[in-house]
């Protein structure tokens, strides 16, 4: 770009709201998504709202039934947080698969959410966990279900004067389990071909309920509601696992692109769910 963009770097959330209320502009946090676009000359904005110094957006707190993760929490912070480790281990697992350490140190949960890529690695976890988003503006704070946040490919319900402030993740209870699996193009620095998070409650080998979030298989992150219903209250048998595999392969809506094929994504998404279910009934619990 020939012009040099103007940057506003507020120190407080109110200041940030104030700036956004005047004029819509691109919001930059850790920069791991936006700077890539800027470097590739694919983003030519005249102004940026730099929220990196808004400390109110940081922190991971225990809120009783849930944990509250500030929008600026980095992947590294989530990985190291005892709260996230204990109460949302799939989010730790997901964070460890993002890029590599350099990206984990700067990339933020809020950024992953707002960037709205269908391949965002944390998104299936938030979907499976039925997380809630705190969205703020000068007009006040509102709560919304994460699973209602996306409307279409890279489109969210966020108004131009709003910021995602924090994410509330309901804690994993003692009798619940979670699971995360990312199938990427390689073992680090990879974009996912399919990425799945599961939260479930099992009693012996009966699946009381299951929540399945999947990324990279549709224009947005999705919940596999049909497959979840199919599995609810059922005893896990190899027959049911096969049904589940078929069901979710048909339920998702992947495309063929430069990374992978529709056929592969359908098939492997099914296999990954099957792996989770096998893990419940296998004696070693590892699903292998």
């Amino acid at each position: 770009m020939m012009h040099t963009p103007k940057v506003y770097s507020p120190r407080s959330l109110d200041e940030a709201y104030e700036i956004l209320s005047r004029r819509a502009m691109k919001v930059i946090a850790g920069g791991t998504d936006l700077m890539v676009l800027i470097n590739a000359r694919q983003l030519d904005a005249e102004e940026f709202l730099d929220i990196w110094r808004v400390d109110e957006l940081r922190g991971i707190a225990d809120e009783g039934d849930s944990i509250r993760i500030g929008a600026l929490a980095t992947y590294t912070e989530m990985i190291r947080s005892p709260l996230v480790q204990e109460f949302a281990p799939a989010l730790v697992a997901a964070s460890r698969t993002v890029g590599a350490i350099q990206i984990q140190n700067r990339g933020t949960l809020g950024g992953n959410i707002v960037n709205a890529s269908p391949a965002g690695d944390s998104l299936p976890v938030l979907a499976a966990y039925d997380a809630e988003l705190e969205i703020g503006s000068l007009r006040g704070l509102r709560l919304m279900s994460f699973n209602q946040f996306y409307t279409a490919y890279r489109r969210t319900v966020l108004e131009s004067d709003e910021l995602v402030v924090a994410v509330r993740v309901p804690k994993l209870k003692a009798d619940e389990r979670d699971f995360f699996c990312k199938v990427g193009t390689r073992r680090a620095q990879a974009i996912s071909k399919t990425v799945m998070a599961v939260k479930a409650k099992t009693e012996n080998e009966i699946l009381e309920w299951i929540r399945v979030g999947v990324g990279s298989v549709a224009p947005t992150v999705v919940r596999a509601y049909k497959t979840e219903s199919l599995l609810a209250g059922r005893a896990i048998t190899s027959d049911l696992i096969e049904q589940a595999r078929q069901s979710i392969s048909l339920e998702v809506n992947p495309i063929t692109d430069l990374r992978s094929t529709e056929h592969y994504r359908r098939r492997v998404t099914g296999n990954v769910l099957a792996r989770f279910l096998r893990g419940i009934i296998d004696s070693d619990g590892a699903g292998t």
Partner: protein
Amino acid sequence: MKIEFQINGATRVIDSPPMRRLLDVLREDLRLTGTKEGCGEGECGACSVIINGEVINSCLVPVCQTTGAIITTVEGLAKDARLDPLQQAFLEAGGAQCGICTPGMLIAARALLDLTAQPTRDEIKEAIAGNLCRCTGYVKIIDAIERASLIRTR
């Protein structure tokens, strides 16, 4: 805009458009050309620097976010013209071939060793997963970092 930060132990004030990449400020304004550009997209890690103790790709950092930061580049590793143990280990173990990824590798290794004094080989592998090398197959880089970790604790 004027930005003040600490670089390799010295306080510097630079004047730069706010969205300019830290990588360019280091290489062009401060003439610290040890930090390299390999891709401009945060994939290769050749531009890695340490900011406030964390290893970060400087091609993805707008300089307006570095006010008050404590930054270390590869030029800041050696002391008084003597190689630091990590650099010495790389030299002895054959950790550098063409050398273009080396500054980034050293920085990632330094950040790791500052956090974990005696990492396992798996931990080393994960710590340098964001630093691409095309020459070595990573074998002797991991050897070098392991070697350095043993020296430091002796």
